[in-house]
């Protein structure tokens, strides 16, 4: 029931993203209005939908996997790793086609997650997990800057800046497809892991005794997260905090079940990003804010509040 309501809210937000500001569509001739919708607003809304949903779903899955509500694609360094992969591919290797960017980005995300698992281990305490994620983010950020500095193009920094801060603007439908299709595949496959991730909340040993292959489950979550997040970062840059916040709200609808929360987390993530992008577009600032700045402005205070209220952890 509440999931249906969430779906409805998402549909409304998506419609708003396509139609608002409405007056503009009526003011121009129908052909121009049509191309405005199809070439500008539709790819942008689809990207917000797919990216937000991927962040929500993979955030929920990663939180379930690490049994930690602060594990999210950005705080684990996954998005930074993906950004590094895309920058290296584009500026050092010179492959700027969307597919090449996606592959580089997915590889970067995978590398960051593998490094996190090696550094912090699968049952990391919150502090270890956050510090490892921080270290990986810092390293990936520094290497990204280094790659841009070493890039043959002297304009690399300026080119990359908008994208690095997260942007849904000026992508064609074709480009958007390179993010949207892997994102939808990721979400569909993550949803199938929900029951196993719920069982994992009983503890790794108990999950194994119930017949789940925990090693394979871990590998699946990590590869899928890298695929979805990597593909979205390649097209839209790094957008933070949605993957942290959406699952936390989603679990309020699933009596705390981390696996069952994947679907509502995907919807909430999509909703958050569409609304954030609407705020960017409709804000009367006279210029465009990067959407990553908006999500960080909302998400960072929430994150601080969360850290202050982490006393619910058991025995840690």
């Amino acid at each position: 029931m509440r999931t249906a309501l969430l779906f409805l809210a998402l549909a409304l937000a998506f419609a708003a993203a396509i139609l608002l500001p409405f007056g503009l569509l009526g003011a121009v001739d129908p052909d121009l209005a049509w191309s405005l919708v199809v070439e500008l607003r539709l790819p942008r809304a689809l990207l917000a939908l797919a990216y937000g949903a991927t962040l929500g779903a993979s955030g929920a899955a990663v939180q379930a996997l690490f049994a930690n509500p602060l594990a999210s694609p950005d705080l684990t360094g996954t998005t930074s790793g993906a950004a590094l992969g895309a920058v290296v591919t584009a500026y050092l290797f010179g492959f700027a086609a969307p597919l090449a960017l996606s592959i580089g980005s997915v590889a970067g995300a995978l590398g960051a997650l593998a490094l996190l698992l090696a550094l912090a281990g699968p049952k990391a305490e919150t502090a270890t997990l956050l510090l490892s994620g921080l270290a990986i983010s810092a390293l990936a950020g520094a290497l990204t800057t280094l790659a841009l500095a070493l890039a043959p193009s002297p304009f690399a920094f300026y080119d990359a800046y908008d994208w690095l801060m997260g942007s849904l603007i000026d992508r064609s439908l074709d480009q958007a497809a390179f993010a949207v299709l892997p994102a939808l595949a990721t979400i569909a496959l993550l949803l199938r892991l929900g029951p196993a991730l719920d069982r994992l909340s009983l503890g790794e040993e108990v999950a194994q005794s119930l017949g789940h292959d925990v090693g394979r489950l871990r590998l699946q979550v990590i590869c899928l997260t890298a695929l979805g997040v990597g593909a979205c970062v390649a097209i839209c840059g790094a957008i933070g905090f949605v993957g942290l916040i959406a699952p936390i709200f989603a679990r309020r609808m699933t009596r705390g079940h981390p696996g069952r929360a994947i679907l509502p987390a995907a919807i909430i993530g999509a909703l958050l990003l569409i609304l954030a992008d609407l705020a960017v577009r409709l804000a009367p600032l006279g210029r465009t804010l990067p959407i990553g700045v908006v999500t960080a402005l909302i998400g960072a205070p929430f994150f601080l509040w969360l850290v202050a209220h982490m006393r619910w952890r058991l025995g840690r």
Partner: protein
Amino acid sequence: MMLRASALSLPGRLFDVSIAIAAGELVCLVGPNGSGKTSLLHALAGIGEAGGTIDLDGIDPRKAGPARRPRLVTYLPATRDVPWPLVARDLIALGGGEGDFPALDLEPLLDRRMDRLSTGERSRVLIARALAPRPRLLLLDEPTANLDPLWQIRLMELVRTEISQGSRAALVAIHDLDAAERYADRVIVMSEGRIAAEGMDQVPAIFGVERVDGRWEAVKRANPRSSR
């Protein structure tokens, strides 16, 4: 029900352990720290990659998937920490079974979150999770730890009642030698990753304790238990 496991081994932990348990049996597993009790339970529960064969009524439970496994074997770990704070009722349901155990008096606990329960209350919920699927073989690691004396008695009597219904059995790792002697049909003594003895006769040699006037005391001799 009949369990026959043979040549169970896990490098450094478990060496060629064979064990048979018949229907209705409550077998207690005792042994010093590090003697392989938990490793044996893990091997039988399909946790980790132990070698050897397991035959539970013609089935290797390790090959059964999540739908069938809880009806064959369930495992209660020794830890009472739960990594994720679920509501008690949901935690029991996730174990793959349902059912009420009046003997555990769960009613006041069911709608509370695990992290808001005391350790003893958590124990009762976790035990109910292992019992609820009504498995053929119950593997319990220190089920009485953290329970007060009355709950310890109630719990072991509940396990006894459970396995007497249908064709079922229990293997219980336990440190309390008195409890092992009192509740078990058979006591198996482990030492250094092997089954060292059946029954309590070898306890002084293996544990370095002996019963003096009804109490366990350290064996008084030059080197009661080789230091590890």
